[in-house]
């Protein structure tokens, strides 16, 4: 199955991102709970891109591991201001943007693999995988 690239530039793109991710997850055979998890992760992390970096993109990519297990990888990239304190950002309830502070730590709980790279003024890249 093809991978998908979605531009994240305005608020409505968050809705488009979670809709596309859900469609892809369904096509890959994910059940309703997993579809909800993936759509929610897409929504949380796409919002971070739009809100903190202004623009960036989401790449949704079907993957297969060595054992033949299928999954979906979502990569969120931006070249925004980056995150100063990654450890703090991963804590529940920490927010610099007036949110609930559930976006990053909550998203991590909804996927099997979660990687985040960020440096001040160099942007942020979050890569997550949920296996079928």
């Amino acid at each position, binding site marked *: 199955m093809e991978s998908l690239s979605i531009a994240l530039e305005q608020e409505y793109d968050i809705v488009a991102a979670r809709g596309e991710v859900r469609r892809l997850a369904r096509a890959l055979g994910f059940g309703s709970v997993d579809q909800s998890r993936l759509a929610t992760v897409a929504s949380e992390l796409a919002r971070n891109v739009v809100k903190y970096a202004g623009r960036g993109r989401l790449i949704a990519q079907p993957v297969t591991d060595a054992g033949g297990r299928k999954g979906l990888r979502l990569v969120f990239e931006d070249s925004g201001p980056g995150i100063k304190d990654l450890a703090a950002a991963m804590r529940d309830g920490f927010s610099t943007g007036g949110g609930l502070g559930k976006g990053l730590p909550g998203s991590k*709980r909804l996927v099997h693999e979660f990687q985040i790279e960020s440096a001040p003024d160099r942007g942020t890249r979050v890569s997550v995988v949920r296996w079928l």
Partner: protein
Amino acid sequence: MDGAQRIPILKVGRVLLVPIQVDMDDQTVIGLQERILAELERTRARGVLLDISLLEMVDSFIGRMLSDIAAMARIMDARTVVVGMQPAVAITLVELGLELRGVETVLNVDEGIKLLRAEFDGGNEEDEAMRAEGLNLFGESVHRA
């Protein structure tokens, strides 16, 4: 057109029924919250039924709206009930770390109406006026056995 305008707020007796049937962008969420509070003030409704049974996803932004509406409505002396959250959405919200404490929930609109029917303790003029006419919160006549 403002997206928020597409979500209807129905007034049934002294209850606001809000069926949310579209995937809302953040502006729509904010707009809806403001409109519900404005309607509460205008109609002096005592209850809000937020029907989310068609929502396939509730993220932290929408979750926060649900909590905020409940808290703000409470200050305005109205009771908010979230109706019909899907199992997949509920599981996701719990894993996300949102438990919506302080928000009342019911399985379906029937249960929501049942819950708010019981809520009619009087205490202000409008309530007393309706009670005098033998009506409940939904404007239905109350038959007492």
